[in-house]
């Protein structure tokens, strides 16, 4: 068995496996399919080449030659096709591909005639029956160089204008093509009786290996996993085969020393040894390949899992976007990442949150091509794609440049593009893989839902605020109008009295005394009004930040009772305060504490409806201040008690169900705790706990 047979067999094995796995990985992608075709034709060719190099007579030599020629004819055309599908094609190049396949057909027809391959003669140099060329064979040789030559020219042309990463990929392709075709062409001389050894055949499998390295290190064709499997499989196969042979030979020799006719026994013993060694060898191979060939890549499932757990339950839009961006930047090593969201009034897309870019510099217009594309396609776009599916057209590429984006994923809710998730280049300059895009698409869908939730939540919060204002308004109105009326009446009466001469007989001192009385009463009334309006403002302020300071619990409760007092009076609800005067202050945001008590007392009043009692008590206990708000209302059923803090949960027909969820959030924001106990028909008690100041 000559070395040529072995080379050809190796070429067959590697190209077949590689082509097969590439195809399985992504049968829909054009690149994967053309590579499969190319690999397949190389495999076909090398298969019969092996047999040809082992041929023992002229007939078999000729037969195998014709067979291998079929593969050889297809190789240049499929190679050109593969290269063209790697690059960004235009009509001219596509035409070239079609033309080359047509020429293939022609050559295949020629192959059948005796004017292509003349005969197979025994050739000493290669120790087999090697074919000889006839008149028409020259066409094949031209084709063999022209088609891939044109492809290489295209590669080189593209090479100049690409990123470093892509340059590496293409460089390996160009280098490999050179070696492969140069190697293949060394078979030609012998066809014309020129005594040149076809040593190049030994290099063809090297072409396959170089492309493999490009795949592994520079992620050409996006098939790391495939290569891992191929290498491990091939390596294992070869290794185990070698071990079997080795052990079999050893045991045979050993046993032969003692028992001369024991082939069967020695084989059996070898088999046992192999079975035992098989698993550890397999593991060793896998570990070695992992350690030396593959960089640590992020575990996509873990990213999505972590993201789902942490981010998707966040109802605060700012935090949701922040965590999304942080997760993506960290795990994909991004240079930048931006989340664009449709503005409230739906007129433009604003940069809601970003990393790695200046907010003013990135722009996404409402009427951009990108958005129109998303409306139609509902799929991501890549600035530089290796398949035509996700490639952005030139106009969209310009828009993506303005966004400093490499990959744009739409965020859709009910067919509306509510935003765009834009990812910049990775720090390693590596391109986005099919896996990445898969994960990001799923993540974007989940993110869209989370955004929708957060927005609804914010909207409900708005409604709740308005409802609160409604409640406050009537109370305030009354509280403000009465003091104003008191003041106004006294002044009007004084002026009226003055006018009708009621003070004619009074002394100046007496008049002055009356004036002073009116004025001081008015001042009192003015301060009353100021107090009420001041309390109102604490309910209108947004609750985003926490300004912690010493807050007196009793005063805070009073503030809430002041604004609610009117409503309580109407509903004939008694409010009882059980707060010791010397109670230590708590550390919290004053306005937010007002809101908490306001909400709890109002809730209590609503539970009571009419005629009842609300008791607010507080005490110090082990470094914390414990507060209880108890009511004699209708109570909460046991199976619903878990739910009352959930947003949107309400038993009120006109309620938004919102107040208690906000209360709990505000309590937590102020480092407090809240829980509730209740009995139907008896009432409920809310237990709060805050750290003391």
């Amino acid at each position: 068995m000559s070395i040529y047979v072995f080379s050809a067999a190796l070429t067959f094995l590697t190209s077949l496996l590689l082509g097969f796995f590439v195809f399985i990985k992504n049968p829909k992608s054009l690149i994967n399919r053309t590579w499969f075709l190319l690999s397949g034709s190389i495999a076909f060719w090398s298969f019969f080449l092996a047999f040809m190099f082992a041929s023992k007579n002229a007939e078999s030599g000729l037969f195998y030659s014709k067979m291998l020629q079929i593969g050889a004819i297809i190789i240049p055309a499929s190679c050109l096709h593969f290269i063209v599908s790697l690059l960004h094609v235009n009509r001219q190049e596509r035409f070239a591909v079609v033309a080359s396949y047509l020429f293939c057909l022609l050559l295949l027809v020629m192959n059948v005639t005796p004017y292509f391959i003349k005969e197979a003669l025994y050739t000493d140099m290669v120790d087999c029956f090697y074919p000889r060329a006839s008149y028409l064979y020259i066409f094949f040789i031209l084709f063999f160089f022209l088609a891939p030559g044109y492809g290489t020219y295209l590669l080189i042309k593209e090479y100049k204008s690409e990123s470093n990463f892509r340059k590496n990929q293409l460089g390996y392709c160009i280098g490999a093509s050179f070696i492969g075709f140069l190697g293949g062409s060394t078979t030609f001389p012998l066809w014309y009786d020129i005594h040149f050894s076809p040593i190049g055949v030994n290099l063809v499998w090297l072409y396959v290996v170089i492309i493999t390295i490009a795949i592994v290190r520079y992620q050409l064709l996006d098939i790391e996993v495939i290569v891992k499997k191929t290498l491990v499989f091939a390596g294992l196969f070869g290794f185990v085969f070698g071990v079997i042979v080795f052990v079999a030979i050893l045991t045979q020799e050993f046993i032969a020393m003692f028992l001369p006719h024991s082939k069967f026994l020695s084989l059996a013993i070898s088999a046992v040894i192999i079975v035992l060694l098989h698993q550890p060898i397999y593991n060793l191979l896998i570990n070695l390949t992992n350690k030396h060939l593959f960089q640590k890549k992020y575990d996509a499932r873990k990213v999505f899992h972590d993201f789902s757990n942490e981010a998707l339950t966040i109802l605060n839009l700012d935090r949701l976007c922040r965590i999304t961006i942080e997760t993506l930047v960290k795990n994909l090593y991004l240079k930048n990442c931006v989340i664009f969201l449709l503005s409230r009034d739906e007129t433009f897309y604003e940069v809601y949150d970003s990393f790695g870019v200046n907010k003013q510099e990135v722009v996404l217009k409402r009427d951009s091509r990108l958005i129109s594309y998303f409306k139609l396609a509902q799929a991501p776009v890549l600035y530089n794609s290796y398949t035509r599916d996700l490639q952005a057209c030139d106009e969209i590429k310009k828009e993506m440049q303005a966004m400093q984006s490499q990959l744009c994923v739409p965020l859709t809710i009910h067919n509306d593009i509510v935003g765009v998730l834009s990812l910049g280049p990775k720090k390693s300059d590596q391109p986005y893989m099919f896996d990445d895009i898969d994960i990001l698409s799923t993540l974007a869908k989940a993110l869209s839902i989370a955004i929708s939730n957060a927005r609804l939540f914010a909207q409900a919060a708005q409604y709740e605020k308005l409802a609160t204002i409604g409640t406050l308004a009537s109370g305030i109105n009354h509280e403000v109008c009465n003091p104003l009326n008191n003041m106004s009446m006294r002044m009007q009466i004084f002026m009226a009295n003055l006018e009708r001469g009621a003070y004619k007989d009074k002394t100046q001192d007496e008049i002055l005394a009356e004036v002073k009385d009116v004025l001081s009463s008015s001042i009192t009334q003015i301060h009353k009004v100021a107090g009420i309006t001041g309390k109102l403002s604490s309910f209108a302020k947004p609750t985003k930040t926490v300004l912690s300071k010493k807050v007196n619990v009793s005063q805070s409760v009073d503030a809430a009772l002041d604004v609610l007092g009117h409503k309580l009076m109407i509903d004939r609800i008694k409010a009882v305060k059980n707060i010791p005067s010397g109670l230590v202050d708590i550390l919290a945001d004053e306005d937010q504490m007002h809101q908490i008590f306001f909400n709890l007392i109002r809730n209590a009043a609503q539970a009571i409806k009419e005629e009842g009692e609300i008791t607010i008590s507080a005490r110090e206990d082990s470094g914390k201040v414990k507060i209880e708000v108890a009511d004699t209302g209708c109570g909460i059923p046991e199976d619903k008690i878990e739910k009352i803090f959930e947003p949107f949960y309400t038993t009120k027909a006109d309620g938004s169900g919102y107040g208690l969820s906000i209360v709990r959030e505000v309590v937590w924001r102020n480092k407090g705790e809240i829980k509730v106990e209740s009995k139907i028909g008896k009432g409920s008690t809310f237990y709060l706990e805050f750290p003391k100041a």
Partner: protein
Amino acid sequence: MGALKVLIVDDEREFSDSISGYLRALNYAVFNTYTGEQALEILGRERPNILLCDLKLSGIGKMDGDDVLERLKSISPVTIPVIITAYRDESSQKRLASKGALRILFKPIKLEDIDKLLREVEENLDKR
């Protein structure tokens, strides 16, 4: 004929007292109370010509202007009810009108509105 009898009911003492004093100085017969219960008692006893009543009152039984308005017809049908209140919502106005209130005066009140009102009632009485 005698002086016009006026009953003023409002739990804001500052207001109630000052307007009562003023009207008394103008020779009206003014009765002044802070609770709904007492208002009903006076209504039954004195049968005033006009009642100026606030909507929100405080008292032991928690009677408010609405309650007084309702009981008015059975206790003292001659009394013309006028409500004074800070509530500006339309539904209250409709409700009170349907219960028989002649007019609703919104706080803060103009003194001349009270003057006008009293003169109007006087004129109507004289006509009879």
